[in-house]
């Protein structure tokens, strides 16, 4: 199992690739900044893409919208959620 720091780094790369954040590097994504609205400025379509990312890469299927919102608050929140719920 990857440690949290490695997982966070991998996740940032996956976010950049899946959302096609052109010109952005993993280091430019603040671990604690909100992913939606302020911070990274993602929108509702991006949230769908992040759900797909979680399902494809970590076997996580989020069915409760409130849980999903909390899980995708920031990179730190996502990393924590993945480490607790991943099936692959």
């Amino acid at each position, binding site marked *: 199992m990857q440690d949290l720091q490695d997982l966070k780094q991998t996740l940032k790369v996956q976010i950049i690739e899946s*959302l096609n954040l052109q010109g952005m590097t993993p280091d430019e994504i603040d671990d604690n900044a909100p992913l939606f609205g302020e911070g990274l400025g993602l929108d509702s*379509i991006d949230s769908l*893409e992040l759900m*797909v990312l979680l*399902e*494809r890469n970590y076997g996580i299927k989020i069915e409760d919208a409130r849980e999903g919102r909390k899980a995708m608050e920031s990179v730190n929140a996502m990393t924590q959620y993945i480490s607790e719920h991943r099936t692959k």
Partner: protein
Amino acid sequence: MSPLYILASSCISPQPSFLCDDLRMDIRCTENNMLHCLEPDFKNYINPVQIRRMSRALKIGYATAISCLNQNPEIVPEAILIGTGKGCLEDTEHFLHSIKEYNETALNATHFIHSTYNQLNGMIALNKKISSYNMTFVHRGFSFEHSLMDAALLFEEDKIDTALAGSFDEMTLEHFTVKKHWGYWKKEDIRSLDLISSHTDGTISGEGSAFYMLSRLKPEHPVAAIKHIAPLYRPSNDDIAEAVDNILQIHSLKKEDIDFVLSGKNGDAKYETSYQHVGQLFGNTQKLYFKHLCGEYDTATSFACWLASKILTTQFVPDYLFDTTETKQAIPKKVRHILIYNNYFDLNQSLILLSLEE
């Protein structure tokens, strides 16, 4: 039909046609039977949040439409009418591959949304806040023609005064390969600029987008106008001859009044006879050609319309439109009428008349 006065136009094609006010272009050529669009800097037309999600076809179509709208910023078109034969192929292919790869689960929303044909219509309407009539036409080789015909019908019924009409289509490597197996393209690689004089089976692939701001009312300055659109499904030679006579009669023209026939001849031996037939109908009338510049695709006639409208408004007829193996006639002092004839794989054939309105 009601004339469609062209107030503005914009075109992205395999040639440097974008933001080109006349037809003085340095023509590009390929040798692999695929002509791809010359892409401008899309960041000038699309905001950064949207651009990261958009495929090539969307970027090309959107930038073309926006640059057309920007030429008359005071006009908010009362209709958005777009023709596309294939829509966003790249997104469609991506989505279909995902279905297979992930066994119909965990599918990307973006590729699904963008694979729908009316995605470009929606983006233009949302971003420019145009909440009027909005229609996408997907009729293979008639797609662009139907967007024009819809504009003509709306004008004729006095429902609107202005419309943004256009087309977009892209070619992907995968679609090229599929169609290659079906025999659409030439087996041998040729120089695209030699296409018109080629007499083997198959043609070369192309892509592009062209948009027009159309007006029901004639502006005070001289403009090109689309005067007639005749889509012909699997026509016989007699049907084509009858359609030509019909167009000439409706517009009180004689064959000699047509200054140029802009032919969609695509170098495919299978369709040469239909182009020869139309050529014979017009006898010595000078023929011009365009498929060696844009390749073959569902909405190639929109590129032809762009060329014809530029010839009419600039009165400049570039050498690259002529077949050097044919006798070149003297160019008329005033080019007034251009008839486009296109044959899309025998199924969809069309005649489009453009005239200079002074």
